[in-house]
């Protein structure tokens, strides 16, 4: 008895040590970024900053926050994410629900048609020409409509709908519901987990998207946060290839403190929201995996 106790105590201690190490390993980079963003740029250049800020000052944050474009691009990203995700959810649900019904005419054709896009696509330039001919250049819809339905998400959702018992729907139909009413009143209320997952997948996708806005948007006022971030973080990373041409003007270098402050400003909202979303995220990933 005593022996077992000793073992379990040792086991707990051991586990706690390992977990503490994991915490240190994951927390240190974050702490480092915070410290650098709050330090004196010269101390950063001398590599004096590790755990805590050296020469504490808020100048980096002042310069980041006084840039009007961080707020504009923040707003843009939020708009694109909210509108984009809403469009995604409406269209994906509608299509997934239709495709989940075995009696749908041409079901196989539409399924193959959409699956095809998983493996083949036209490439960047034809896409650009299509977007341009549709008159979507420099419009937020260029970021939303081409990816209005994510094939993979569609399939996950279709599988989920297929797994719902058809009896419920039939009983609703007998009570006089038309298919749209069945979807809205019966199916959607029991599909909350898949919605949470899809919302997360799509929202993260919109939040992170960088290349399409770079291509399709021309007006700086419409750029999302990712372009702003890329611009600040990559600038000043001179490689020898650049210096050969003689482009190394020290005026053009950006201090690391400003870069790190930008990172902090950009990720803070996500960090604050993430713990609340995490439980859905884990659930959602499981949904995809259980039903193949």
């Amino acid at each position: 008895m005593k022996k077992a106790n000793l073992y379990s105590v040792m086991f707990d201690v051991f586990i706690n040590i390992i977990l503490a190490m994991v915490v240190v390993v994951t927390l240190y980079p974050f702490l480092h970024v915070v410290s650098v963003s709050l330090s004196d740029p010269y101390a950063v250049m001398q590599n004096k900053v590790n755990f805590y800020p050296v020469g504490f000052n808020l100048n980096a944050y002042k310069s980041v926050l006084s840039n009007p474009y961080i707020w504009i691009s923040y707003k843009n990203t939020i708009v694109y994410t909210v509108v984009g995700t809403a469009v995604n959810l409406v269209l994906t649900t509608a299509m997934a629900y239709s495709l989940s019904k075995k009696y749908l005419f041409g079901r196989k054709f539409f399924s193959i048609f959409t699956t095809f896009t998983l493996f083949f696509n036209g490439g960047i330039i034809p896409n650009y020409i299509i977007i341009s001919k549709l008159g979507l250049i420099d419009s937020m819809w260029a970021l939303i409509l081409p990816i209005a339905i994510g094939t993979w998400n569609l399939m996950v959702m279709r599988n989920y709908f297929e797994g719902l018992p058809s009896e419920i729907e039939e009983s609703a139909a007998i009570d006089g519901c038309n298919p749209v009413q069945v979807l809205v009143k019966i199916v959607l209320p029991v599909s909350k987990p898949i919605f949470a997952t899809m919302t997360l997948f799509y929202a993260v996708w919109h939040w992170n998207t960088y290349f399409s806005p770079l291509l399709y948007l021309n007006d700086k006022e419409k750029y999302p946060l990712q372009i702003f971030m890329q611009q600040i973080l990559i600038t000043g990373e001179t490689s020898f290839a650049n210096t050969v041409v003689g482009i190394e003007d020290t005026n053009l270098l950006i201090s690391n403190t400003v870069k790190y402050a930008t990172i902090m400003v950009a990720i803070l909202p996500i960090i604050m929201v993430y713990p609340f979303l995490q439980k859905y995220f884990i659930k959602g990933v499981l949904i995809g995996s259980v039903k193949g």
Partner: protein
Amino acid sequence: MKKKKSIKIMRLAAIVLVVSILPLLVSCGYNTDDRKPASEPKSNQDAVQHDTEQDDKKISDKVIEFDVLIGEHVSFPVTRYEDSLFLQKITEKTGIKLNLIAVPDAGDAYKQKLNIMLNSNEIPDIIWTSKDDALINSLAVKGIFLSYSDYLDYTPSIKKLFETIPDIERSYSASDGKVYIMPRLTTNVMSEIFMIREDILAKEGLKEPGTFDEFYILLKTLKEKYPDKITFINRNGGEHLVNRLAYSWGSGYETGTYGFYLNRDEDKYQYGPLDENFKLMVEWLKKLYDEGILDKEYALRTTAQWEEEMSKGNALFTVDYIDRVKSINSGYINNGMEARVAAMNIPKGPTGKSGILAKSAVMSNSGIVISSKISDPVAAVKFIDWIYSDDGRLMTSYGIEGETFVIDEDGKPMLTSQMKRQANPNGKELVKDYGWIYYMDKYEFPVGYLKDVLPGDPVPEDDRWMFSREKMEKANQVIPADPVLKFTEQQTSELRSKCTLIQDYFKQNIDKFIMGTRLISEYDQFVEEIKKLGVDDVAKVYNDAYSVYKGN
């Protein structure tokens, strides 16, 4: 059941229809929105036109709009037209309104966007930064861009530049001999210098060396007196070292041409590492490495590590860009350190030469290109001509005359007293307060052309940057750059297939020789190995291109 099925089909069809029509509807709405504000400023402009004194410079009485694709550096954000006095002033002066499409010039972003625009033939009116001159020229001969050569009657300033800087036509004309790219021009061509801790030389009473032998003795003395410090620090690897030292050693190694260089005595291109003097230089570097004078980690130091050691005062000598003199010294001053760096005269090599190659005055991949589909070609070339005229150069460099700068009695531009400078740190700024656009400036004036110290301002502390410049110029150690050559497509593919191999093989081996993992007695064998990779063929391509360059 059948009926139910057909209803389903109808529904699906309706959804598909809505999805496909939606973009069209939406895009129409968006476009009209975009056009509205464009027409409004016109009336404003008409009102302004009456009080312009320089009506003769006007290109058009009616405001003409051009879409301009321009890179944007994050330190110099592009301001929207409504907030930019600078862009509005340009419209007032020339009658041209520029709608800037500002693309981040960070990483590959600008190039990616430009490439896709070019490939899909959706080209904006003007491309301000050509980025890939060879690609632009190959598209230009297919008629996609306007040729400046065809409009010389309208463009006196460009015509004059073609005469004074023949390299524009020699190096940048397309295969049909016409110029489609107006490059960026710079007078500040100095690249790197031998940078030494001036304070330590003075403290120890050491003299600047005249030859590389004396230089070795100097470095050895420093090593003995300061064993804890890095005597000779380097970044960007071994290739950087040989690149900057080879000229003085009577050879050459230009990274832009993969190690080939123009031998000025024989007036032909050759491959540096084959020279006997090149081998002598490698032996000298090896000696420095063996004795711990050359940083043991010279081949691997990153820019960040290099900055760290320099700013802590841990390094005594380096070869690097002259502009670094400013930033390193200002760090020392702000931290109350006594350390100072400045240029040292470059020692003479075995053939008596000394110097570092400059940058080319005509900068590649940064020129202005006009689409041939532009609404008003004459107005467009006239506008580009204005950029290169005296008036346009002043404005794109220093902003608005009378507001941000004035011309003093010597004819030199001078900051106005309201502008931000050392004596007036809270003054107005070109970018923030006037919406000045950094990359609009296509012509650099000579260094020190603008007076940024006004009468009554305190004289700044002794300026080691200027001192270093003058020292280099006085000693004639800024060597004119090798010419920019242009190649046919076939030549380009031959260079591409062979040069990367040669360069990679060289890079792998040069550090082995310096660090001693490969014996210097094997150098001749190494020469034979690298010759087999096609050195002679590549040299022929460069010499063919060079004779074309000279012939034009």
